[in-house]
């Protein structure tokens, strides 16, 4: 029951919107919503999606690739290197332990050792997509549990390459059947000796690093300079697709390649721009992926042998949970963190689909064995988010509080808590002065030349259009204390200010106002920290003129401050007087009218003696009267 691409798209999108919004309403993770949507539209419930589910699965893997790219973007190379111990240690322990136990289980169940080995490989892997998506959604990336999960998943991404490489060695069949097998993963290197393969892999990694530095960043600068926004989206996709292609070509995991690419670009000024561009696409692709997993659950297999499926499922989850708990124990995680880790990675991951179908094509597994394992995999992916949920709702509250998320982030680049938008003449002075006090702001500017220069000078500057909330979000607006807007264009300032005020009311806004009327508009919006760029400078000039004419400097400096105060009061006073006629009076006319009003007020005021302080006239008079 399929009706072409459009129909499929409608089915997927409608399913996603319906199920995910319901899941969210119920306080569940979006992953569960997508999985349910998949089951719902899949061949066994509504039957909108049939056999093509697996094709979609392959396509949807781009979600995982993008996710790893985005995660890479957040990890600077230096920090990545610092993580090597936990990656190898935790990852090695988890994969090794799980493989050993599940191998024992399946040989005990009477499977051939080769089959048991293949299955244990598949079982050892967890789902990067589900686990990381859930962790990020909950904002737990910076906890020790988040770190541990990430390390283990990264190790699995690396080890799966070797697993795929080892599978042909286990094959019973001869070369010809292997060649005839419908193998999607035939690649450039299959016919090369191992040594060359290794070299090619190293070469491609180096290639990613070099092109990242010397090709991609200059390309992004060109794109940014062109000012066409969609080109940047195109460029972001180009990067991800190209890396995936290259990686598949040499037989590496595209996700791993994308991760590397992300790490390489994490130091570049386009970090936040790339993040905010890819983020929504990533989520959509991942959603598609989860739906495809849901749709691929083969309910016929379950119906035939419900007890076996259930038994295997429970046994595998138990083994994985046990090993994860033990790993947490060895690496001295606190109890709550250990439990989170235990349940969040207890599922079999998406790599299992690849491994199992590859093993099937190599004739290691029979159709029934593969079907059983695929069902168990899909079910485990669906069940673990629910178990995690039970853990979080009912078990953790009894143990005590969650580890504070605010602990120092040791390996994820720390977001600054002051954001400076615009780094032209005005913004640069602000930024330099802040910096001279050891306050480093995160700088956003939409001129890539500025940004390029700033980065050379060691500023943390990023290219991007700050009127987009998602860019501000990737620049860390949620954790920011203050946002300074020094943009020239009053409309842009107004846009940014009102947007931030609405979405992140805790962020204090410090605004440059171009002129009187834009200052008044900002004040009308309740933005009191508005700084007119011309006010102070013009008064300094005027007071220097008066000083040259013989006025005392100290008196002038007091008068300037008095005048500023008076002028600010006038600005607020007229704010009330105006009002409905704002709509039809043009900006220019408004400006003139205001000027007139101000001058009239000045005229009425005359030459004002602001203070009679230090004057002895009255004392003298009083003495004389005596």
């Amino acid at each position, binding site marked *: 029951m399929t009706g072409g691409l459009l129909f499929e798209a409608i089915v997927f999108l409608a399913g996603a919107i319906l199920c995910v919004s319901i899941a969210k309403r119920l306080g569940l993770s979006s992953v569960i919503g997508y999985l349910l949507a998949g089951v719902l539209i899949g061949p066994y419930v509504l039957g909108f999606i049939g056999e093509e589910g697996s094709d979609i699965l392959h396509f949807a893997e781009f979600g995982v690739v993008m996710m790893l790219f985005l995660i890479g973007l957040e990890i600077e190379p230096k920090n990545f290197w610092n993580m090597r111990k936990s990656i190898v240690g935790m990852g090695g322990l988890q994969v090794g332990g799980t493989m050993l136990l599940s191998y024992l289980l399946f040989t005990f169940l009477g499977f051939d050792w080769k089959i048991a080995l293949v299955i244990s490989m598949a079982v050892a892997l967890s789902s990067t997509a589900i686990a990381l998506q859930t962790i990020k959604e909950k904002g737990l990336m910076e906890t020790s549990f988040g770190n541990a999960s990430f390390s283990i998943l990264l190790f699995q991404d690396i080890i799966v390459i070797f697993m795929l490489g080892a599978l042909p060695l286990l094959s019973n069949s001869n070369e010809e059947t292997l060649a005839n097998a419908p193998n999607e993963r035939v690649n450039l290197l299959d016919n090369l000796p191992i040594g060359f393969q290794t070299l090619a892999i190293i070469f491609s990694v180096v290639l990613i690093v070099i092109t990242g530095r010397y090709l991609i960043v200059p390309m992004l600068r060109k794109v940014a300079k062109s000012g066409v926004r969609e080109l940047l989206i195109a460029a972001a996709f180009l990067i991800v697709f190209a890396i995936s292609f290259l990686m598949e070509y040499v037989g590496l995991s595209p996700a791993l390649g994308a991760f590397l690419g992300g790490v390489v670009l994490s130091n570049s000024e386009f970090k936040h721009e790339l993040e905010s561009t890819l983020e929504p696409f990533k989520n959509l692709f991942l959603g598609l992926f989860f739906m495809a997993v849901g749709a691929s659950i083969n309910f016929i297999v379950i119906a035939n042998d419900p007890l076996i499926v259930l038994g295997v499922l429970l046994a595998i989850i138990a083994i994985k949970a046990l090993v994860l708990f033990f790993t947490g124990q060895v690496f001295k995680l606190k109890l709550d963190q250990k439990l989170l880790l235990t349940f969040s990675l207890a599922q079999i991951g998406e790599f299992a689909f690849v491994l199992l179908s590859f093993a099937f094509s190599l004739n290691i597994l029979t159709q029934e064995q593969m079907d059983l394992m695929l069902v168990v995999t899909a079910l485990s992916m669906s069940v673990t988010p629910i178990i995690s949920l039970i853990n979080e709702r009912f078990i953790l509250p009894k143990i005590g509080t969650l580890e504070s998320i605010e602990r120092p982030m040791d390996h994820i680049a720390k977001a600054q808590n002051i954001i400076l938008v615009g780094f032209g003449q005005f913004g640069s002075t602000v930024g330099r002065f802040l910096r001279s006090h050891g306050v480093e702001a995160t700088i956003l500017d939409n001129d890539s030349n500025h940004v390029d220069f700033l980065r050379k000078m060691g500023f943390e500057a990023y290219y991007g259009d700050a009127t987009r909330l998602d860019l501000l979000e990737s620049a860390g607006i949620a954790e920011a204390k203050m946002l300074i807007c020094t943009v020239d264009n009053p409309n842009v300032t107004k846009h940014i200010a009102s947007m931030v005020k609405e979405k992140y009311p805790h962020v204090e806004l410090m605004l440059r106002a171009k002129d009187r009327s834009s200052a008044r508009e900002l004040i009308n919006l309740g933005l009191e920290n508005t700084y007119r760029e011309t006010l102070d400078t013009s008064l300094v000039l005027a007071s220097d003129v008066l000083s040259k004419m013989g006025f*005392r400097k100290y*008196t*002038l400096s007091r008068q300037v401050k008095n005048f500023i105060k008076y002028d600010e009061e006038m600005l607020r006073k007229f704010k009330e007087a105006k009002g409905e006629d704002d709509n039809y009076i043009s900006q220019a006319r408004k400006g003139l009218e205001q000027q007139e009003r101000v001058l009239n007020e000045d005229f009425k005021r005359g030459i004002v003696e602001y203070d009679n*302080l*230090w004057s002895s006239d009255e004392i003298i008079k009083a*003495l004389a009267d005596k």
Partner: protein
Amino acid sequence: MKRILILFSHPKFEKSRTNSVMVDHIKDIPGVTFRDLYECYPDFHIDVEAEKELLSAHDVIIWQHPFYWYSCPPIMKQWMDMVLEFGWAYGPNGVALKNKTWLNVITTGGAREVYCSAGSNSYTVNEFLRPFEQSANLCGMNYFPPFAVMGTHSLSKAEVKEYALEYVKLIDLLQQGLSLGDFKKCAFLNDIPQLKTQ
């Protein structure tokens, strides 16, 4: 000839009647450096290094200011707080001002009669100036009695002019190296015999 530095503080100099006449008489005397602190530092942001250099280059430091609330105007206190640094003006190695001369030249609204235990101000001007005297002592300086123009509210222009000329003469004496022995018994420099004999 002694080099004289006059550090002048008056927040509203343009309104002053007495000080402006006095300043007019002394500010261009050769060998005298006249420094108007409120004009130099309208924002109270004192250039400590420049001030220290000036102090080092002079032998006699005169503080000229109106007597507000029995003390100096705030910028002068600011100047003291910032410039008279530990280890420079006082303390173990703080000998930069040693043996230099310090004196206050002040104007007061009240007459000399009200500045005594029986008068409305209860204390003498010298008593009120104790903080300056002790500051000078701490810096190893010779603190001279003040030159005071008192009762300014009721001074005529001619009287003010007279004071100004006395001030000029005092500066001349200081340039000649007026020493402590000359006025041991005087509460004010105004009273020293050299100023009285025309």
